[in-house]
Every structure is written in C-alpha cells, then in structure tokens.
C-alpha cells in the first residue's frame, strides 16, 4: 500500500522547523512559516472527518490559534511539529462534534474500499463494498479513526503512532485489531443475510 510521504521530514527540515518555533515562542508573528507549512495538511486532516468545507477552514484556523496559545508548552520530542498540530486538530474536531457544529463524516474513495476488501480477504464486488460501508458504521470511533488514517489517508504506522501518541507498533496492533473487528462485523452481516 502506498504511503503519503508528506509527513516525514529530514533532519535539516526538522532543525529549520525548530528554529521557526523557537522564534515564534518569542514573537508569535514569526509563526507564519509554520502556519504556511502545515495549513494544508491540517485542513485536509480536518476536512477528511467533516462534511462541510467552511467549518473545516474555521476549525483549521482555531487549531493554529490554539497552537500559538500553547506554544510555550511545546517541547521537541524528535517528531515533526505537525504531530502536535494533529493532536490539537483531533481535539478540536471532536469538540466540534460535541458542540454539534459538525457531523462526523468519513470520506473515502472507491479505491480505498478495494484495499479494505483485500485486507479483510473478501471480494471487492459492489455488494461487498456496500456492506463494508455499513460495517464501518458499526465500529467504535477509535477503530474507525485507525482505519481512516491507515487506509483512507494512507498514513504510515509511525505517523499514526505520533499523531495518536502511541508507539508505532501499538498503532499497527490496534489497526489490525480494528480490521479484525471489521472483518467480524462483516462476517456476522453475511451470516444474517
């Protein structure tokens, strides 16, 4: 499965990023390059989970405001700054759901359904694809998120781990468990039919 390379950074890039952050800690107006660098990534992450474009842009702005506000607490832990931004974004998205400002939406492409069908060892026919969509609805939010990150957003386990604040291996194990659950729900639905 192809993985989105956007997230990974060279040491030089990480150092440059640290320099930006260090400057922004002293003067928030220096946060501009960080905003430019990550605005699209964070927007796409948010929009992936939402139905409405305008709300996604609003939440994206909110994420950067909150990041600026808490920047003094940010500490480099060897991973890109974006993992910290993603965590804020995740929290803001869920807050929007709680506040009923947005509806939890999963956006995927037909091709992703092939990937999932393959992973759960089922034929990728139209009937099965429709069934997978229904099964997704039966999973817990945490499991949906893992499947979403891995299969719809094409994130590496390393990146998933950093965003979810768990170890890479744990991200892998949890994703497999989520797939297992999906497989189980799928099988149960087939039995009932």
């Amino acid at each position: 499965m192809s993985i989105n390379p956007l997230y990974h950074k060279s040491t030089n890039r990480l150092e440059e990023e640290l320099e930006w952050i260090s400057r922004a800690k002293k003067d928030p107006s220096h946060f501009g390059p960080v905003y430019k660098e990550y605005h699209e990534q964070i927007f796409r992450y948010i929009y992936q989970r939402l139905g409405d474009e305008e709300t996604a842009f609003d939440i994206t702005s909110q994420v950067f405001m909150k990041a600026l506000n808490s920047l003094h607490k940010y500490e480099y832990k060897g991973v890109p700054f974006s993992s910290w931004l993603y965590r804020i974004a995740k929290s803001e998205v869920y807050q929007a759901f709680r506040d009923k400002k947005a509806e939890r939406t999963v956006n995927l492409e037909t091709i992703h359904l092939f990937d999932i069908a393959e992973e759960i060892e089922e034929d990728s026919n139209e009937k099965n694809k429709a069934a997978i969509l229904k099964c997704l609805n039966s999973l817990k939010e945490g499991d949906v998120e893992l499947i979403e990150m891995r299969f719809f957003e094409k994130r590496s386990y390393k990146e998933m781990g950093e965003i979810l604040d768990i170890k890479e291996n744990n991200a892998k194990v949890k994703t497999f468990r989520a797939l297992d659950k999906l497989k189980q729900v799928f099988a149960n639905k087939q039995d009932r039919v």
Partner: protein
Amino acid sequence: MKRLKINVDRPKIKTEDIVSKQDFGKVLNGYNKMKTPIFKKPWFYGVIGVATVAVLLTVNSKTTEENDTKITSTEIIQLPEDTKCIHAPVANLDVDFTTISIDPSKDQTIKLPSGTTILVPEGSLMTESNTEVKLKIREFESKSTSFIAGIPMDYKNDAFESAGMIEVRGFEKEKEITISKTKPVQVKMVLTKNPENFLFWKLNEETKEWGSYPSNFNTSPLTNSPSKDLKSVKNKLVAEINKNEVTLSVIDQKSKNNTEPDRIQHNLPIKGSQRFDLEFDTKEFPELSKFKGMEFEVASKTEYDKSFTKKVWSSIDLEKETANYYAIFSSKKEKFKIEVRPVLSGSKKETAEIEFQKLVNDFHSKKNQLNEEAKIAQSKKTALQSDYNQFLKEIAKNRSITTTNNQESKNVSIANFVISEFGVYNCDKPINYPAPFKEEVHFSFSKNNPTDIVSVFIFDELKDARFTFGINSNHNISQLGVNEKSENTLLAVDRNGKLGYVRHFNSSKIRNSEIVLAYLDKKDENLSFIQKLINENTIEN
C-alpha cells in the same frame, strides 16, 4: 444506528483553493483575543499575595535570628518555566519559587518558613562576579504542591510517598550557576513525616529518574517562630488592600467624570427631531452669527403639535427668553410658539460630526478601559482579602506554635544532606502501583460522550501517594487501577488542558467501561480547591 455520514468519491479540493484561504492575520488576531494577559489571570494576585507572606516571613525571621548574615533583597518571580522533566499539568497553575538574593562572598544561612535551613558557605557558589546571586527555592510539603508543580513522582514501576521535597536553583544575572564540589551547600530539610523506612533521592532531570542520594535523618526542636514579625507583613497586606481601595475609588471617580458626549452641547441635530430654516437678524442675536444660514431644531421637552410645519404662516419670529430661544409662528388665525435651538448644517455640521464622533469613540474606549481596570482591581480586592484571611489563619497557627514552644519544644524530623548540584531533592518511600483494571476504560465529561484524556492522576489518601498514568509517567492510561480500600480522588486532563475529577474514586465508579468526570471549573483551578478535592484541605486546618 447510523452514526457516521459516509461520502464516497467526494470531489477533492485543490491545493490552490486551500492556499487561497490561508489567512495568518486572522490566526494572529484570534490568538491575541484568546491570550489572557498575566495581570488579568486570577492566580496572579493570589500567588503574589501568598508569596509575599512567604518571602517576608523568610526575611524577617532571617534578620532576627541570623545577625551575622544578611540577605540583600528578595523578589517574587512569575510562574516557573517547565523544564524537560518538570511539567506543570494544569495550565496557569504552578508553585512559585521564592527568590532570595544573597552575597556569595560571605557565609549565608537561609531559613524558610517551614523551618528548613540552607547554609551557603562563602565561595560555594561558582559565580563570575562574586557579588550577587539569586537562589530560587520551593518546597513541596504535600501531594497537591508536587502535583501542581508537575514533579514526576514515579520511581521505576512504583510511585513515591513523600516526606518532604525541596527544589533549589541558583542564578547569576539570569544565568544558571553551579556549586563547588569542595564547598557544597548544606541543607537541613524539615520533614513532614517520621522518615523511618524512607530513603533520600535526587531527581536526574536528564533521564527523568530519581536516584538514591546520601543523607541522614535526625530530630530537632523547631525554632521557627516568626510571629513577632508577622505584624509588618500584616501592615503591608493592609497597605496593599488600602492602596487597592484607593485605586477602585479613583476608577469610580474617573467613570463618573467620563460622560457620554451630548449632541445638543455640540450644536448637532438629534435624529428624528423637526428642523426648519429660520431667518434672523444677527444684530439682534450676535451670539448666533456662527449659525447664520443654519437650521433650527425643535427643543421642546413637552408634547407639541407636530403639524405646525405643514401649516401656512405669515411670519416666523425668533425670541430669546433667558437662555432659551423660541420660534413664534403667526398667521391670521393662530399663533404657535415652540422652543428651538440652533444646529449646525452643511459643511460646518460635517466637520462637527467628525469631531463629535471622535469624542464618542474616545468616550467608549475610555469607558471600556475603566471597566477593565475596575475588573482587575475588583479581582485584586478579592484576592487580597482572601490572602488577608489566610494570613490571619497563619497568625493563629503561629501563635499556637509559639505557645507550644513556650511549654515544650516541638521536635521535628530533619533530613541533613549536602548538595553540589542544584535540583530537586526528595525524602521518599516507593509504593506499588495498584493493579490495573481488568477492562480498558475510557473517559467522558458527560455520559457516552468520550473525551481524549492525556493524563490521569490518582491521589491515594491511605498510601499518601499520587499515581500518574499517561504523559510523563511510566504507566499508560490503559494500566489505570486503584486501591479499592483507600479513599481516592481521580483527576484527569484532556488534550486541551481541560480538567475533570471523580471524588471517592474506585472501580464502582466505572460503568460500561466509562468513567464520567465532573468538570473542574476554571475558577476552581487553584491550589486551595485541589487541596480540598484530595482531602488535604490544609488551609481549613
């Protein structure tokens, strides 16, 4: 039940479209609105007040008991910065350092309010100028203070029960200094418990681990009786309260003086009023010459017949009675008299409107500013009052200590140790973490509404320890457990720093793998409330 909306093959948004929506200015503006200035934060005055008491106690007890040494000055610093190892878990809440300026070229003994003494021998501090050094010190005498400061309390797989902990840092012109290996600083730390079965530790801030540290324990009479000098502290607090009262009354007076500009006083028309042209002789009314060719507006304060403008009059005259002007409308049939006032019109009015608008804006901005100042002064008043009440309790406490001392000396346990490195030193006993729950739990602030928790703290009253799960702990949240026989309080922090808690926590509080948290209101994010939550309640003692 359908929870998710699923879109398949939704059209993608182009990068250019996303980039075109970038607006860093909006983010900066939002951030500036979000940011609360330090002086507006409620903890500010509380901390300042409490710390003032602490520092003054220090200086006063020092000057009375240690005549041969002199502390040059003291000051309060703002919230301590987090370090690699020490993270205050609650935003805007921390344990302040007391900063003491000392002369490193002489032997110095510092006595803290707890009775702990620190002897800094001459030449012990490695300085460049050897003139003035600032020591920043804070003691953690309870679970609440070490929690608020964010001191890690894990030792390998265990948690620490503490009998006393101190953090000491040294600076010369804001630059961290070191201690001579051959002339270490000597500390006699007053312990809160009998140290039997306790060990002594130093925090390695690089590895974030506690390492065993040499010390010895003894008991000693508590000689700290600063009550004599409390009077000056009281006077200072009272002076602060009075000063704030003056500030409040000045703000009140300024608010009264800040009156909204009146259009009438600026000869500007009032919206909705009837106006008409009126020819008059400037020789008769020279004061109105600047209104020549301008308009008159009805200024009647009582009801009048508004149809007069639609009637045909043979003459209109202007009359002046005392300071008021009247227009007299006459026809063969009737006469109509109405109070009027001259108003500017045309370009004169436009210029006057601009000036008037500026005055209105100035009025509103001054009003807002005064409201803000009043809010700050009011919150300072509350904080000062609370500090004063607390101070009175301290006096009562100190009196009882003095009385006890007169009859019989109060013995306390002391940990004696020397330090050749600044840092955190702790008298502790490792305690086993409770066994994890069989099922993995999740948290919510309202039922069936999971929230993303990053840290969980269990304050165990029986073990007198804090068990930490999640960030900055060796235990994940999935390893959460509790000593069922103990009285426990659970505190949890979500990704946004929002705090929740469960009092009397044990496994019976878990329903369907869910722990429902009570939201800790922002106003309750203070030491006093957290002490109450975890049953320390030291202020109420």
